[in-house]
């Protein structure tokens, strides 16, 4: 008998807790929030008849009064219209996003001179498709109302002239060392400028550190990140490296990784991915084999791999749980010489040196590691930073500049940084707001947002790109490089500086032409390199002593959206569900179910975490299937307490104190003790909000079965009739639609979807979807038009097989399924709407008409996919949401809204529209040019931002289109409709996930 796979989305669903059962049957957990609107706070909460009549009378009077005279609206044209700006027509500029290792070559969509959307730059070879969620959301940064509007001197607003005068004078008489502290800078011109700036001082140092450091990796590889190429690897073994989510360069890595994971019946081969890790990461969720290990066992696992592959060294004490997996990993790695890659997320130089040795033994150099093209996206040198902190404390530092660096918040030695800063006479920050570090600075010379700046980038050797401004600076800020040029007395501006720098690499001929082309393309990827890395590390220190098997080992990790906290004031990222835990707004102590049962803690209970150095903080507990036993995981990037980040203020706690600093090495793990506080703080998860009632919605199979017969990997439900089993589509009450012109559809390959969530943020931005905040997410009123359902699964064994039966939540497999309106041809929502506010179009789109909707919510009740969202409030111009949803509540924030999409009013339903505004625009463009639309011109926001091309959108009537060809190829093999048995005939097709199980 075949083992049945059981799917669940959260522990509550697996256990079927009473609360889950209650919500499972209620689409809407609460009644309309009528009480919340009655200001008098009457205890009954009921409106009296007379009050009702009075109110009604008043409303009628008010309406008739208001309608007497329409408000006078102004139409204000440009005074001098810029040549290339046409009102109502979008302009696109190529640029580059880079922040804390997260690199993306991008196109910026601007309307009337204001950036409103970010898309991938197809000219780039490094990131031609897709963006990260963070890059998507970064467009809001420029409209952040909490940015500094002028420079500050000792916290007081000042003029630039004054700042320049004072800083120049003080730099002239500086004694001691001058240091610039920055996070990784991948701009060759900026690096050079900093070098020139420092040349005039007797003692100068540019110290780079990363909030989530890769110092160990750099140290073991000559100061650079090896040029990993996952697309060449048939076997990938990762020990704690979340390379699809947060490690080094996730977007390029995801692109490379997925190349060998896409299967067709013509080419049924895929790479094999084995992951050893503590917390369940995005990468672990995509692995074929995942082994939970404790952080203290990482070194042992790598030693075992090293011994197994090189045949040297003595046998270590390999963790029992990993023995079997290790043995098979070693076997497979050895069998794939030159096609194998081992990566490790450890920040320990010794461990990384061993990984480098393993890769070299596997013949990875020149194959899966491009030795000519290392990555530059992480350059932080922990030893240098620690040395500088010590120097500051001894008082030998005369001046320190902070550029994109906030060590008071994100360096484990933050207390020493604070005490050291008191002894530095001149402290200057280029921060765009008053944050933890800049609050202690004498001067804040606010830098431009990257959308207002010129810059060049070299994220990987030979891959150059440019950043160009897309709007004039909103505030009286100045680019950091211009400030340095001013203070060094060199003068000029950074734009000219970059241009001069690029003259060196220009091809022969007219430089202006070359430059225009480079700015237009955004990238120059012909192998030319400008970066000179001079990152000296002391010899790799020996493996740091593994933490003594204390009661509980904690591990720190970055969340895909929030990272190390630079973007934590971005509501879109805060509201984006974590790919794994589906939690929004805050961090938590994640532990396995077994551990929580042993400790008798329930989810949401607040724990007091005490770290090795005695620091304490409080966070709620979250049950995380797949978390290694005896460990907890806590996300970085939370616990902001500053006023300039109101969105992130008091959300979660800063857990950096968990990190262990041994000599010059920072390890993002450490022992902790946990105590119950008795308090509870619910975690706003979106995972089980929209339940699908145990129906067959995701499908998966194994590569072996797929190779054997691709026609049997997908289960097609057949209905029993008196004539035998029948396809559900053959039994129908409805007439089918005839599509003459277009038939829009979408195909989602579950094998390619890595669950990163970029599409959900992209959808949010494109369609003006409101952010509702933690309280409303807890009320199950999140507004995401698109969600990625994360299913845990485990094989349900037959009962007699007690031995192998483990708890299903111990180490489940994970499937990601993007879910949005399926645009059913026989849509259940359309038939129940009493006012015909949702209808089918002649192009296959299920249309939602906001101005017709009266808010009965029948449609949402009747939707089997649970993709309809109700506007419980007016989220715009509403003080209740002024903080969380500032892009609809402040003049500046509103600039980011898409002017082609209606901002929905209170009381109406909304849902995915297949980006109908894009469909319409593309059709119009085609008509204007007297032709049919070309495939690829009509792209929905989610498909465009997908780094792995898991989502394909197009016209199913066009036989040449990619979607038609995929559907033709996969029909009867991997293509299936979710809930086919309902015969709603969706226009969204999914492709079965294939796992490469041994």
């Amino acid at each position, binding site marked *: 008998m075949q083992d049945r796979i059981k799917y669940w989305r959260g522990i509550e669903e697996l256990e079927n807790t009473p609360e889950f059962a209650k919500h499972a049957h209620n689409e809407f957990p609460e009644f309309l929030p009528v009480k919340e609107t009655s200001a008098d706070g009457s205890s009954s909460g009921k409106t009296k008849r007379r009050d009702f009549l009075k109110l009604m009378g008043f409303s009628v009077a008010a309406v008739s009064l208001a*309608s007497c005279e*329409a408000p*006078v*609206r*102004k*139409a*204000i*044209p*440009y*005074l*001098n*219209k810029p040549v290339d700006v*046409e*009102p*109502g*027509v979008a302009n696109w500029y190529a640029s580059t996003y880079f922040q804390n290792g997260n690199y993306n070559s991008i196109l910026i969509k601007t309307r009337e001179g204001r950036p409103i959307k970010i898309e991938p730059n197809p000219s780039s070879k490094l990131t031609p498709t897709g963006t990260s969620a963070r890059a998507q959301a970064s467009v809001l940064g420029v409209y952040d109302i909490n940015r500094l509007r002028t420079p500050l001197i000792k916290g007081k607003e000042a003029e630039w002239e004054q700042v320049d005068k004072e800083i120049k004078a003080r730099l002239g008489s500086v004694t001691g060392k001058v240091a610039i502290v920055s996070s990784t800078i991948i701009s060759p011109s900026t690096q050079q400028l900093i070098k020139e700036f420092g040349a005039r001082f007797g003692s100068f140092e540019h110290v780079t550190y990363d909030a989530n450091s890769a110092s160990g990796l750099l140290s073991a590889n000559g100061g650079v990140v090896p040029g990993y190429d996952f697309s060449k690897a048939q076997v990938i073994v990762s020990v704690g490296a979340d390379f699809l989510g947060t490690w080094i360069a996730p977007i390029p890595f995801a692109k490379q990784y997925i190349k060998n994971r896409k299967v067709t019946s013509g080419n049924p081969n895929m790479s094999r991915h084995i992951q050893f890790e503590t917390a369940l990461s995005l990468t672990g969720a995509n692995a074929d084999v995942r082994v939970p290990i404790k952080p203290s066992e990482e070194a042992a696992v790598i030693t075992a791999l090293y011994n197994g592959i090189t045949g040297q060294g003595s046998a270590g004490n390999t963790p029992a749980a990993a023995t079997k997996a290790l043995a098979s990993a070693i076997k497979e790695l050895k069998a794939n010489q030159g096609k194998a890659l081992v990566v490790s997320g450890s920040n320990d130089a010794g461990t990384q040196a061993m990984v480098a040795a393993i890769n070299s033994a596997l013949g990875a150099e020149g194959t899966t590691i491009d030795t000519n093209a290392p990555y530059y996206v992480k350059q932080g040198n922990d030893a240098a930073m620690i040395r500088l902190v010590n120097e500051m404390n001894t008082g030998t530092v005369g001046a320190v500049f902070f550029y994109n660096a906030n060590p008071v918040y994100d360096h484990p030695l933050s207390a020493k940084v604070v005490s050291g800063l008191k002894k530095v006479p001149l402290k200057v920050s280029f921060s765009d707001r008053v944050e933890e570090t800049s609050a202690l600075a004498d001067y804040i010379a606010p830098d431009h947002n990257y959308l207002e700046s010129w810059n060049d980038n070299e994220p990987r050797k030979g891959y150059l790109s440019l950043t160009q401004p897309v709007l004039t600076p909103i505030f009286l800020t100045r680019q950091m490089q211009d400030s340095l040029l001013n203070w060094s007395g060199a003068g000029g501006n950074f734009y000219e500086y970059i241009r001069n720098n690029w003259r060196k690499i220009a091809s022969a001929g007219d430089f202006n032409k070359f430059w225009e082309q480079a700015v237009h393309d955004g990238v120059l990827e012909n192998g030319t390199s400008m970066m000179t890395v001079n990152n000296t590390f002391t010899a790799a220190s020996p493996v740091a002593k593994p933490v003594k098997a204390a009661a509980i080992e904690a591990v720190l990790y970055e969340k895909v959206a929030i990272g190390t906290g630079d973007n934590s004031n971005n509501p879109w990222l805060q509201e984006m569900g974590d790919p794994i835990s589906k939690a929004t707004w805050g961090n938590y102590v994640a532990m396995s179910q077994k551990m929580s049962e042993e400790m008798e803690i329930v989810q949401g209970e607040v724990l007091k975490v005490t770290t090795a150095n005695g620091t304490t903080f409080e966070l709620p507990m979250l049950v995380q299937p797949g978390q290694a036993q005896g460990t907890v995981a806590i996300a970085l990037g939370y616990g902001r307490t500053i006023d300039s980040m109101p969105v992130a203020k008091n959300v979660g706690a800063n857990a950096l104190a968990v990190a262990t600093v041994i000599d010059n090495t920072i390890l993002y793990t450490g022992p902790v003790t946990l105590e119950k506080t008795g308090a509870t703080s619910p975690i706003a998860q979106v995972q089980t909000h929209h339940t699908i009632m145990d129906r067959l919605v995701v499908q998966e199979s194994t590569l072996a079965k797929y190779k054997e017969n691709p026609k049997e990997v997908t289960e097609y439900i057949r209905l029993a009739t008196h004539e035998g089993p029948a396809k559900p589509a053959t039994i129908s009450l409805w007439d089918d639609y005839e599509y*003459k*012109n277009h038939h829009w559809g979408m195909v989602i390959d579950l094998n390619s979807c890595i669950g990163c969530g970029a599409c959900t943020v992209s959808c949010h931005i494109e369609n003006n979807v409101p952010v509702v905040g933690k309280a409303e997410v807890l009320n199950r009123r999140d507004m995401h038009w698109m969600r990625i359902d994360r299913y845990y699964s485990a094989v349900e064994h037959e009962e007699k097989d007690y031995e192998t039966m483990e708890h299903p939540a111990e180490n489940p497999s994970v499937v990601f399924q993007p879910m949005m309106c399926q645009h059913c041809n026989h849509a259940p929502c359309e038939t129940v709407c009493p006012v015909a506010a949702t*209808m089918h*179009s*002649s*192009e296959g*789109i299920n*249309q*939602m*008409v*906001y*101005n*017709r909707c009266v808010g009965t919510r029948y449609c949402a009740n009747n939707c089997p996919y649970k993709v309809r969202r109700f506007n419980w409030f007016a989220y715009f111009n509403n003080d209740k949401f002024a903080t969380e949803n500032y892009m609809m509540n402040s003049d500046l924030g509103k600039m980011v809204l898409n002017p*082609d*999409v*209606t*901002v929905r009013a209170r009381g109406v339903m909304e849902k995915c*529209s297949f980006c*109908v*505004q894009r469909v*319409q625009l593309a*059709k*119009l463009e*085609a*008509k*204007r040019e*007297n*032709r*049919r*639309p070309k495939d690829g011109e009509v792209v929905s926001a989610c498909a465009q931002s997908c780094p792995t091309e898991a989502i394909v959108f197009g016209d199913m009537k066009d036989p040449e289109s990619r979607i038609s060809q995929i559907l033709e190829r996969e029909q009867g093999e991997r293509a299936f409709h979710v809930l086919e048995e309902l015969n709603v005939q969706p226009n969204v097709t999914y492709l079965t996930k294939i796992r490469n199980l041994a």
Partner: protein
Amino acid sequence: MISCIVKTKIKVFLAFLIALVVSFGAYAQEASEQADVAQKGVVPGATQGATAAASTGGLPVDDVAIVDAGESLFKNNCAVCHSSGSDVIVGPGLQGINERRSADWLQKWIKNSQALISSGDAQAVAVYNEYKKQAMPSFAFSNEEITSILTYIKAAESAATAVTTGEGGVEGAAPGDNIGTDAIGAVGGYLDIILVVLIIVLIVLVVTLLLISSVLKNYLNTNRKLNEYDQEVVNPRFDFSKIYKSSAVRTLVVLIFVVVLLDLSLDKVMGIGIQQGYQPKQPIAFSHKLHAGEHQINCNYCHSTVYKGKSASIPSANICMNCHSQIKTESPEIQKIYKALERNRPIEWVRIHNLPDLAYFNHSQHTQVGGIECQTCHGPIQEMDVVYQYSPLTMGWCIDCHRETPLNTEGNAYYDKLVELHNETSKGAFTVSSNGGTECSKCHY
């Protein structure tokens, strides 16, 4: 009670009066529209007889395609400063330019006049000095494009001579003049006043007559002995007042009144938010009648994105300056533009056409793809001194047009297959709505 009825009666009467006046007004308007159509009909007629070509100077004036191409280039680029006739706008009128200058010289001049002037060309310098040293911008036209423009000018000359010779009796009323329309409009206003005066006189007359008759009746009844016959005449047994005092009649009157009132108020309520006829005062008294009507400046010249984008765009001050740096610089209205430029403050026009945010409208879809004239929605804009909202801009109005208008599918490969499919299954016209143009998501998203 009685007073109430009296009031009601007066109201009904008033309502009737209003209806009367309004319908007369409407008549007047209709009349003016008809006249308008009649007057418009003259214009296409004027272009007849263009075939009567004189010497063409080697230009292909018979090639309609070239002339058309030249016309659109001329109107979009040249017409702002040059007329095709002999009048001077900013630069000289171009009538006879093909005879005055060599083709080679013209090519050079149009592509870069400054280069020609600085090269010391005598003709170029002379022209430059004659027109106040106002430099003509350079145009990146191809040689063929310049030829097509010149051909158009040539063709226009021949057409003009044909018209003047053919219609000598029109007494100099150039096409595009709207004297007739104005006259009718003025008469319409005049009629209204006469009507109102007449009605007031009539009311006074009726009231006076009634008073006289009642006085006479009283006198006869009290002071005269009347015989039976006279008695019958003075005090008829059949009392007319019984009719209007009968409850049936009263009910009917009240009913009619209520219906009229309801209808009126419903109309009003439905009209909330409809700003048809909205004619706000603008910060600068810009006249479309002068610019678009008399000077025939192409709409696209100022509303530069009307064929490209969603918005037709209100011209920026620098577009005004293309001409008004030279023309009518003393006018106080134009001084306002200078002031705006000096103060670096944009001009705040009052928006006339306000679609609600929930409706998406794209100009280029209608103008470029649909081939619809601006006047179809905006009315006789070339006759408006102050622009008003001509169409109701209601959804019903949009939908009506989408239902009735055949799609402009000619020469557009987008529609080729669709037209075929449509003709196979239906005999009706291939309208906007038969291509899904009345579906919700075409305008609401």
